[in-house]
Structures are given as structure tokens and as C-alpha cells.
């Protein structure tokens, strides 16, 4: 059985990358990753016995990312009169931050597929496992996501594309 400490150390960068693609701001991404690993830590006796603890903790991560975005959306509505501060990602260039901003405007499942495929470097089968859907659905989300992005990314920075 892999120790939790080793699992945490090995999986942390990959998890953080996915989180950085899913939410604005590095510290928000780090909090998200912490929450996901805490869930695994609390149940490590069981989670470590799963076929893929790696897939499990990524599933928790994308669920938590959705909850966080919902919570932030309600908070944003509540403070919309004063204008919320822009979250910052000093670790990313403006171009990359812009790409993720465009991704954040996609439907949730499409965002997840993009993050897991491009940043997480997961196979279609692994993404299907994490997202709890078929490989066909993953391919369909990915195809639609690219279609959507073709328009928004071109508008955002035509020169880059």
C-alpha cells in the first residue's frame, strides 16, 4: 500500500495543474487541491485500496472545483455593486491566463475535459473514469469545447492563433 505522504508528494503537481486550469488564482487552486487531498487523507484506508486512488482524488477535485465556482458565483452576485477584485495568477503569463479564462466560459463538463486532457494528460478512458461518463461522451465534450474555443480564443487574441 502506498503511503499517503508518497501519494500526496507524487500527485500534488499534477493535481495543482488541473486546479489552476479550472479556477482563477493560484491560491484558490492550492486550496482546492488541499481539500481534495484532505478528503483522501481522511479515508486513506479505503481510498488506497481502490483500483486508482489517483482517479478518485481527481474526481473529488473536479467536484470541489464545481462547488467553489458555484459559491464564488453567488458571492460575485452579492458583491457585484462594489465590484469584486480580480483574482490573480502571477505564476502564469497573461496569454495562458487568458486561455484559461476562455475555458472558464465553457460549460462545466467541457472545462473539466480540457483540464484533464491537456493539463492532466489523462487518456480518454482515464478521463471517462474520473468524470463518471463514457469515452464517447468525453470525446463529444472535447470536440464541442474546441469548437467553442475556436471562436472565443480567436476573438481574444487573433495574433496568437
Amino acid at each position, binding site marked *: 500500500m502506498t503511503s499517503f505522504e508518497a501519494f*500526496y*508528494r507524487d500527485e*500534488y*503537481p*499534477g493535481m*495543482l*495543474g488541473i486546479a*489552476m*486550469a479550472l479556477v482563477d488564482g*493560484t491560491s484558490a487552486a*492550492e486550496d482546492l487541491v*488541499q481539500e481534495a*487531498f*484532505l*478528503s483522501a*487523507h481522511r*479515508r486513506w484506508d*479505503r*481510498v488506497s485500496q481502490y483500483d486508482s486512488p489517483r482517479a*478518485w482524488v481527481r*474526481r*473529488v477535485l473536479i*467536484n*470541489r472545483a*464545481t*462547488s467553489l465556482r*458555484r459559491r464564488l*458565483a*453567488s458571492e460575485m452576485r452579492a458583491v457585484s455593486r462594489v465590484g469584486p477584485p480580480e483574482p490573480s495568477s502571477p*505564476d*502564469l*503569463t497573461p*496569454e*495562458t491566463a487568458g*486561455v*484559461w479564462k476562455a475555458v472558464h466560459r465553457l*460549460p*462545466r*463538463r467541457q472545462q473539466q475535459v*480540457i483540464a484533464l486532457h*491537456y*493539463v492532466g*494528460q489523462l487518456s480518454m478512458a482515464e478521463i471517462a473514469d474520473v468524470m*463518471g461518463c463514457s469515452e464517447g461522451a468525453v470525446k463529444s465534450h472535447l470536440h464541442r469545447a*474546441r469548437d467553442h*474555443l*475556436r471562436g472565443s*480564443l*480567436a476573438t481574444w487574441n487573433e495574433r*496568437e*492563433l
Partner: protein
Amino acid sequence: MSKVDQALHRAAVETRQAAMRRRPVPLETQRRAHRQGWLTFAAAFALVVLAFGLVPWLAGIGEPAPPVGDTTPPPEPVVTSSIITETTIATAPASSCPSLDQAAPQPVEGLPEAVAETRDAIVAAARSCDFELLETLAGERFSSSFGGGGSENLSIWNDKGLEPTVTLLNLLDMGHATIPGPAGDIYVWPAAHSYETWEEVTEEEMNELARIHSEGEFDSFGAAGSYLGWRTGISENGEWMFFIAGD
């Protein structure tokens, strides 16, 4: 490779590199354990001082102090008494996950996307007996008949086995309704939960409810005046709010 693909690949490479540069922060449990270690030490030190210094002094001027270490154990979590005293569903040990084909809710038309996604995620986790994942799906305001608040109280599913899981799957396979919540509508299963009186429950709905409740329980709902059995709710923005029974 398309231009979109190139842009995404570039962004992904940079993001992975940025993530690699970040050192893993100590997990909150480690920091908390460290803090708790100091707090425990401080508390123990204070008790020792109290025991060897203050107590004898107090004993001379008043009633004897209670013995150090005579701590009352924390109360057990309050468990809402469930009206469910018997069930037609056989329980199985939590370690097994038999086929739940008979409790396989189909997608529902007309639900808001966020509600449908949460419902689908609950169904997927429940059908694979992934109780840990179910815990993570529960929102911060989640409440259940198992006591307490938040997602942690779902951990009792690890001991309860399949019974609540099958109940949950059966619920999500029934007709739904909406009730007003603190911040928008809450989508509830079964629809009977939204009715003011037990008389409003249709025969078809009774047949559905018979999958999780006995005739005796139906009688108790009639006596109470409304449906008080198992129900679950998801807020319109997709937060899983409750899975509860009783009043």
C-alpha cells in the same frame, strides 16, 4: 494540430511547469495536528499546575475540586429518530457492491443543468457504492438523518452498508417537485415531500414510495398528516442539501 489545440497545449505546458515550481504546502491536517499538539501540551501543563498547586489551595477554602481527568465524554451526535423501522430492502455489508440494476435512475428531462449534474454524480457514486465520493458531493449545508451537519455525517454510510444507498437511488428514480429554499428553489425527491397533506399523494406515487416504505409507515404518514419519509433535495445551483427522514 489546430490553432486551438496549439494554444491549449502551450497553456497546459506552462501551467504544468508553474505547478511543478510550487512546493506542496503542508496538508492542513499536518498543520492542525501540529497546532493541536501544542494546544494539548499547553492544556496538559495547565492541568498539572492546577492539580498540584491550585486544587490543594482550593480544598482548604471550599468544596473539593473535581478530580483532574474526570472529564465527561462528549455527547454522541444527535440522531434524528427515523420513522423507518422496517424496510423491504435487504441490507448488505458495506464491503460488497452488488449490481444495483433495479435501482438505476434514468436521466430526468427538464431539470436545470446544475441540478441534473449533481443528481447524476450522486447516482454514479451510489451505484458504485463509493460512499467516500458521496461524502464529497454533499454540500456544506448538507443535513441527513444520521446526525450533525455538513458532509461528514454521511460517513456513517460506511457502517450502514447498502440500505441508505438503495433508498437514495430509489428516491432519485421517483417524480420530483420544487420547494422554496433559503436561496432559490430546491428540487426534491419524492414529489410527495412538497405536498401539504398525505391525501394529495397519488396512487402512482404511493406505488413508487412502496419501494422504500412499508404499509405501516404509510399509516404513520396518514396519522401525521403529511409525508415524513425519506427525501432528498438539491438546490437550483446544484448543491446537495439533504437526505433525511422523519420530522
